């Protein structure tokens, strides 16, 4: 059996599954139950200065559902903890004392001055917590007060606050990034420059999940009004994966440890983050949707996968996909594939036909008795039919072997590699050496 234990910037946990800073981690009762359920660590719900903030008293979550009301995305207008600082600190200390093998990270957000940061870091150190996470990501409410993503969107502030924190504590400092920026590498580089031990990402994405068409107000609606909230859950995973990958494949910051967050719902999601270089993952929405027990599937699935891949530990997986994330211009243009429909698996719904005929390349033919076939002379291998087919593996992309002629282009398929940088149509092409 593979070993799931991880060491993230010196913080040890029995598995790479941490609960992200959010309602699941906002009190002792929850965190104890989470640890009993098997979670490897938690990032405690963000602490701030007293007097503690208040939350709205109406609904704070909006949602986007798939068929069968599967929760695909959620947004929230919740702020940081709305309980007194001392209460939280006492609880953190008590839980850490009883669960010494689990990771206990404390998320923090205080005004942009060195003194309150120095002060609260001392308070956290007294609890015996393993590290801190700086919440530079909250996109609603707190940002209006000059905190959260208001800091996270200005690299200079990130660097400055990170530096203050590193100067004022011996605990590892993780900087949590907001995705509400044009280029995630800039805030990551700023955290790095400030001396951060790691970054974690993503926090939630600015969003309105829906509009009430009777009240003409965004959801969730509070007395006829709504504010934009932070989007999370399965829907944001692709955004998060890309941001993690962008950091990991950038030379100057690629070695900065990353805690991957955003839509982790199954072991597979977690494995994808790890493959893209995250040293562990954090989970919020999946726990809020299915309860703490989901971690059991994440643990069994990840260990089965590692065993199947003959990897002994999580470390063997971390970063395995990073070298394969490249710029578009580096993709092999000599790699020619065609869609192939498995007639035995086909249920004859015709979705591939509609998609290709109406919106792509008219490369699927339909016979009077509903047999769907690919016309290689038109197929550009876009993958749309694969994506709309309801039957997994019914349509697959098959590579044309070298030497065969691609009936669409009339060109003979080659087995060497050639990309856009040398393509004759590229005005800036460099002559092949």
């Amino acid at each position: 059996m593979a070993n799931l234990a991880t060491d993230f910037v010196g913080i040890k946990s029995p598995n790479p599954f941490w609960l992200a800073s959010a309602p699941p981690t906002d009190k002792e009762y929850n965190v104890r139950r989470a640890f009993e359920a098997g979670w490897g660590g938690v990032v405690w719900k963000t602490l701030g200065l007293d007097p503690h903030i208040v939350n709205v008293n109406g609904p704070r979550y909006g949602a986007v559902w798939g068929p069968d009301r599967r929760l695909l995305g959620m947004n929230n207008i919740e702020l940081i903890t709305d309980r007194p600082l001392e209460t939280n600190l006492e609880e953190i200390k008590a839980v850490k004392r009883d669960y010494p093998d689990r990771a206990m990270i404390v998320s923090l957000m205080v005004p942009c001055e060195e003194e309150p940061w120095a002060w609260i870091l001392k308070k956290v150190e007294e609890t015996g917590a393993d590290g801190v996470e700086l919440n530079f990501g909250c996109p609603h409410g707190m940002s209006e007060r000059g905190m959260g993503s208001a800091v996270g969107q200005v690299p200079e502030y990130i660097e400055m606050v990170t530096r203050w924190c590193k100067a004022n504590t011996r605990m590892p400092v993780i900087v949590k990034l907001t995705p509400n920026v044009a280029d995630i590498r800039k805030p990551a580089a700023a955290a790095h420059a400030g001396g951060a031990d790691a970054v974690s990402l993503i926090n939630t994405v600015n969003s309105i999940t829906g509009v009430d068409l009777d009240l003409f107000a965004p959801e969730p609606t509070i007395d006829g009004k709504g504010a934009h909230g932070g989007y999370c859950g399965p829907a944001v995973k692709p955004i998060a994966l890309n941001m993690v990958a962008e950091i990991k494949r950038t030379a100057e910051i690629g070695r900065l440890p990353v805690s991957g967050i955003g839509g982790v719902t199954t072991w597979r999601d977690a494995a994808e983050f790890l493959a893209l270089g995250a040293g562990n993952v954090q989970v919020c929405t999946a726990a809020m949707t299915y309860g703490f027990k989901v971690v059991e599937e994440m643990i069994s699935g990840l260990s089965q996968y590692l065993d199947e891949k003959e990897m002994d530990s999580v470390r063997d997986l971390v970063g395995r996909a990073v070298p394969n994330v490249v710029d578009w211009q580096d993709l092999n243009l000599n790699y020619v594939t065609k869609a192939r429909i498995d007639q035995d698996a086909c249920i004859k719904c015709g979705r591939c036909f509609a998609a290709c005929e109406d919106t792509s390349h008219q490369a699927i033919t339909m016979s009077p008795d509903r047999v769907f076939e690919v016309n290689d002379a038109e197929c550009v291998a876009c993958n749309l039919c694969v994506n709309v087919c309801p039957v997994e593996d019914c349509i697959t992309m098959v590579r044309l072997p070298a030497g065969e002629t691609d009936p669409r282009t009339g060109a003979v398929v080659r087995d060497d590699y050639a990309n856009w940088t040398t393509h004759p149509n590229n005005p800036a092409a460099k002559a092949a050496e």
Partner: protein
Amino acid sequence: MKPNALAEGVRPGRLDPSSLAEGFCDVHPPLTPHEAAVAADRCYFCHDAPCIAACPTEIDIPLFIRQIATGTPEAAAKTIFEQNILGGMCARVCPVETLCEQACVRETAEHEPVEIGRLQRYATDTLMAADVHPFERAAATGKRIAVVGAGPAGLACAHRLAMKGHDVVIYDAREKPGGLNEYGIAAYKTVDGFAEREVAWLLQIGGIRLEQGRALGRDVTLEELRADHDAVFLGTGLGAVNALGLDGEDRDGVEDAVDFIAELRQAEDLAALPIGRDVVVIGGGMTAVDAAVQAKLLGALNVTMVYRRGRDRMNASRKEQDHATTRGVRIVTNAVPVAVHGNGAVREVEFEFVEDDLTPTGERFRLTADQVFKAIGQRLDGAALPATERGKIAVTDAGRTSVDGVWAGGDCAAGGDDLTVTAVAEGRDAAEDIHAALTR
């Protein structure tokens, strides 16, 4: 139709081999990966799920379905086997419509539960096809335990004890292990020798020795077993069959349904198995349904199942009753047999209609029969057993009997339904209790 199909009497070869093969194929064929993905997707991963509570072995159903949904049916199988080592057989034979699937919240919402049984089969088949046994024995304890009966109760008990490092000897009276899995369950529920394969797979844990053809009471006494072992578990099932107590009950053609089924289950060639043209089955449980349906599948022209109370009181679930009727079995209710007529061999069975409380109505009818199967219940067989209660071995919670060091579970023990899954649960729990008692 073949002329043979219409001929009177109890005779073989009523149907051609292809009709037989079609009739006796898997009733609930395995799910394909696509079907499994779609079925698994419907599970809501309920909190403290009602399906778990409705399973006598308390399998963590939402977890195993989520493991299937996330592409790890092997992990799902392990989740199942941790609670129920005969999860493969249970997936095939459990009346899920009265157990887990009845409790499914989607049964409430849409009258269409998640297909838990078939998903369980998908997972367990996947792991067993890879011939992986997912458990290892703990360090040897040096304790020896005798298990009597290699049915679901005995096997579940033996496996759990072996896993804990104890040495187990199973004594079983029959030629083959498996109990009613091998000799009783309807053939179309467990095709391709699954019962036998499952036992072989289960024994991979090691530390279990099978002694077939060794009967308690005949070849060995309880006292001897107690003297030679640290504990004894009795999982002997119900070996005796209730009689009708009627004149003519001994006529040719009047048989115990369980014997007919056992013979059918062991038959090399179903075409060689004799069956009547007009078959009457007396009883209203699973055994009656299985005898009736299988008689029909062997080519009996008229099969009538007669039960003394109303449909809702039958032990066979509504789904099983429907299964029988869709196969062409006629179900007559509120009638009791009063005489078996014939001359040497049975010719007719006479019945009287009764009220729900069994008060005779005076109305009688006769059914033509060249074969009659009695399926009015089994009972405990054997003497010198621990104290009994309503005809079964009395037990406290985890199967402790009145005799020190002797546990019992499954059909032979009082309490619980007479189901494969209940036998597994009781065997497993007794093993835990034995382990606790021996390692205290």
